[in-house]
């Protein structure tokens, strides 16, 4: 049973759990209030947007692509949601459909250009980053649109649980994502495209359509992120999600997904997101100064990946230290 679980989770993730525990213990000792239900509940409710975007990013990295546009696309779809709710007075379901469809459309745009002309996704999504951001300014008239309680249910704590429906939805996305990745044919196809796209092509399977689908998925999930973000802030901010792509990629890579494609796990992405969230919350709780926040974040990002790499490379850190002593 345990083996089956480990198998389901994709790969060994003890290195990450270790890093996470170290962080939690450290902040727990540094702050009297870190170990409170409130801290964890607020963290849980701030996660959803980054989490779903990071899940989409995981898939994109697995097919050896990259998506820099997620932050802007999130802002754009959130902006549209605000616009149709406030200016056009649409009802919530239609507004949500519009928001998610726009995310999907942006993702499709990325995927189409990448697959059709074989342009590196880095540059295509960098272009989309600018375009979608411009779009978000256009839609909102460069203003924060206030929506109010109409969208509050997304981030309001659920009865009985102290977490929001957004959080629950994001966890469902994680679980479905992991199942898709490790248990469906499409998941295998994604891994294969990231690992050797030429071999996939020679198997008579359309690499292009897989690529397009994955970028669509990432765009769609960015749209979902926009929905969560708007629900949380009750307003649509065209400047939302600036730099989100880098946080998302950091979370995914900390989770051990390879930037070279072919290898990754959604559950580990969740751990990566948790590491980043705990770090941010903890640093804010102990009231660290801005420069030290930056430096510590940078060091933790690198250290987390080093710990993970070492755990996988040669069967444990102990062995590594031996090797380290040997090599000057």
């Amino acid at each position: 049973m345990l083996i089956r679980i480990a198998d389901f989770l994709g790969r060994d993730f003890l290195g990450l759990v270790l890093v996470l525990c170290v962080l939690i213990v450290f902040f727990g000792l540094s702050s009297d209030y870190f170990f409170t239900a409130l801290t964890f509940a607020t963290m849980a409710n701030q996660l959803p947007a980054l989490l779903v975007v990071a899940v989409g990013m995981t898939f994109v990295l697995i097919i050896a692509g990259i998506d820099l546009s997620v932050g802007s696309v999130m802002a754009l779809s959130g902006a549209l949601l605000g616009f149709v709710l406030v200016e056009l007075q649409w009802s919530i379901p239609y507004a949500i459909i519009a928001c998610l469809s726009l995310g999907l459309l942006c993702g499709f745009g990325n995927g189409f250009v990448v697959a059709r002309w074989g342009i590196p996704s880095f540059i295509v999504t960098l272009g989309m980053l600018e375009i979608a951001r411009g779009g978000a300014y256009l839609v909102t008239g460069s203003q924060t649109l206030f929506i109010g309680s109409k969208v509050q249910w997304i981030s309001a704590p659920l009865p009985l649980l102290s977490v929001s429906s957004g959080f629950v939805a994001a966890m469902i996305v994680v679980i479905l994502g992991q199942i898709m990745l490790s248990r469906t044919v499409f998941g295998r196809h994604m891994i294969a495209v990231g690992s050797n796209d030429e071999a996939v092509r020679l198997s008579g399977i359309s690499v292009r359509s897989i690529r397009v689908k994955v970028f669509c998925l990432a765009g769609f999930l960015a749209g979902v992120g926009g929905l969560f973000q708007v629900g949380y802030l009750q307003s649509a901010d065209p400047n939302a999600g600036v730099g989100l792509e880098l946080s998302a990629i950091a979370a995914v890579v900390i989770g051990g997904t390879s930037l070279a494609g072919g290898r990754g796990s959604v559950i580990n992405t969740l751990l990566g997101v948790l590491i980043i969230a705990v770090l941010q919350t903890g640093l804010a709780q102990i009231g660290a100064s801005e420069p030290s926040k930056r430096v510590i974040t940078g060091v933790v990002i690198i250290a987390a990946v080093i710990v993970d790499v070492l755990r996988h490379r040669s069967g444990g850190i102990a062995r590594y230290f031996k090797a380290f002593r040997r090599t000057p």
Partner: protein
Amino acid sequence: GGGNSETTTVKEKPIVALIVKSLANEFFVDMADSARAHQAAHADDYELIVNGLKDENDLSQQVTLLEQMTARGADIIVVAPADSKALIPAIKRARQSGVIVVNIDNQLDRDLLAEADIQVPFVGPDNRAGARLAAEHLATKLSAGDQVAIIGGIATAFNGQQRQLGFEDAMAAADINVVSTQAGNWEQARASSIASAMIAEHPDLRALLCSNDSMAIGAVAAVRQAGKTEQIQVIGYDNIGAARELLSQGDILATVDQYGDQLAIYGIEYGLQILRNGHVPADKQTPVRLVTADHL
């Protein structure tokens, strides 16, 4: 099209270039809009080009814009500097090539201006005084010894620093305890996560003082999450539309209006005036106004 530099000498209407910090920021968008409206109303008097930075803090892009607007043949440059010192050499170069420069919003460093031997009139508000207004209003709702926290802008920003000082002045005067000060970098989401952490760390917190309204919106979300809407007051700055909605709901206690729309117009009129009679007018302090639910 395809003119050359000869045409600059034969044109009739002066060109005014308005360079603001960011056209993705509601405050400056309002400013640009009212400048355009002013130009439309005085279409015979001047032409207008408005430019902003992609990133509010990109000084070198602002220097570049100053130079490009000089190259573009602008007669008057109205600039809201992203930094009070670093822009002075570029402004001096513009002055030397005969361009009239008016400083709005964020005041250039006077000593350096004097050292560089250039005269640049200033039109703008006193951010510190504005912040003090809002914080003083907050103080009336609290009692001495209460705990509050400040969420500031980007640490390097001059107006952010002024607002923070204003908040601190008022809190000190009312004997209220500022337990934490952190930079929210003007961003909603960032301010929200910082606010959450502050609320968890300081269970008795009574207020969050935010250096702009975007961050105040983020802080309100954090307060709502923690279920402490009754206990914790939020104040902001800038009086943007979304903040007014929250003000009327009672989620935000107060914000500050510094008439961004008027600033640019004053600046443009100053510039045109100098162009007409060569006389450099004195600096002008524009008003700041406290906005609370009662004022809506």
